[in-house]
């Protein structure tokens, strides 16, 4: 039990996907402009990563055990299918969220965080339950970073920024400052 809690907390804070592992930067920069879209994207990512962690673990353990070199191809296809599924479900049941997420929903397929967590699960030899917890916690960490950062960006809208820094550069520099805060968590539990 202690181990599970440790995996969860370290996945959220110590090795935050966005701010210390650099997984999922594109959606981080793309949809963190407003809190509402950040929440929507975060929800979709939590759902997809948790599901894909479970499915890819089973696929790797039972289908690919003798062919580990096929994992990249197999994982990306599983993830692509899952994203398609989530898209259909959202379109059918939550159309407002579907339109709000727009282009970013199909882009979850090419979100490094999803494939990254599947690969990390395999690399670290997690059990099924550990993999599930890690996937869930990592995506919660992703959502946390997105929400925190959307607050920073909403403030930036009204501030006076030099022309050359407007847009992407100032966003990256603000992300650097938020990331400094997360570096502070390193050393927590001596991980």
């Amino acid at each position: 039990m202690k181990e599970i809690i440790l995996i969860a907390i370290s996945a959220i804070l110590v090795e935050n996907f966005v701010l210390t592992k650099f997984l999922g930067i594109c959606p981080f920069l793309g949809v963190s402009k407003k809190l509402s879209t950040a929440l929507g994207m975060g929800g979709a990512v939590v759902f997809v990563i948790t599901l894909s962690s479970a499915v890819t673990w089973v696929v790797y353990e039972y289908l690919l055990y003798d062919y580990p070199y096929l994992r990249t191809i197999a994982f990306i296809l599983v993830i692509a299918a899952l994203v398609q599924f989530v898209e259909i479900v959202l379109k059918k049941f939550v159309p407002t969220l579907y339109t709000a997420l727009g282009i970013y929903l199909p882009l979850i397929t090419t979100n490094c965080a999803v494939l990254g967590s599947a690969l990390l699960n395999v690399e670290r030899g997690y059990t099924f339950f550990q993999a599930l917890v890690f996937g869930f916690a990592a995506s919660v960490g992703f959502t946390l970073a997105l929400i925190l950062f959307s607050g920073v960006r909403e403030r930036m809208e009204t501030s006076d920024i030099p022309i050359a820094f407007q847009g992407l550069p100032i966003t990256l520099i603000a992300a650097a400052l938020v990331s400094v805060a997360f570096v502070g968590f390193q050393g927590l539990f001596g991980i």
Partner: protein
Amino acid sequence: MAKSKGRAMQVLANGFIKENPVLRLVLGTCPTLAVTTMAKNGIGMGIAATFVLLGSNIVISLIRKIVPDKVRIPVFITVIAGFTTIVELLMHAFLPDIYKALGIFIPLIVVNCIILARAEMFASKNSVGMSILDALGMGGGFTIALFIIGSLREIIGSGTWMGYPLTRDLIDPAVVMILPPGGFLAFGFIVAAINKFSSLRIRNKEISQGCGLGCPGCSNGNNGGGGQ
């Protein structure tokens, strides 16, 4: 003939300067930030991605007329995943150091937006020859961008360049540059510098036509600026 040669050069140069995938189009940011703690890793990642891009562009441009429109994205991703696996196995066998340093970012080349974007926007619409040039241009632009960011971070963050000690004994390196925040910081400042220079370039262009050297000049400027 001269015209097609001109277009070929244009396609090749496009990726380096006008549409540099990292610095202008802001694609593939994850590997850009993650592997650029050292200039050497940046080059390794750049070459690996260029290889995948070259392979996938060739294959996709060859099969572009056979693949039905509806299933093209899954087909593209499968092709890209195939080439990524090849690169992964090759690097594991021949470049174990870089393989270890890049870690999970080698399999993650599959989800590098640059490669899928080129497949979708260029290789699925153009001939094999043009697609090869496009892959080389885009891959080269990616590699150069990673090299610039990697150099900046390595020189400031650990006082070395390509592994050789440079300023390490003179000033204390600012370790934050090789930690995660340094990635965001270096990338932010480089994009800002490019914005600054390219806005100058547009102004120059208004005054006198034909300032072709504007952007290579500015990327050299960044590199030099990083050295100080």
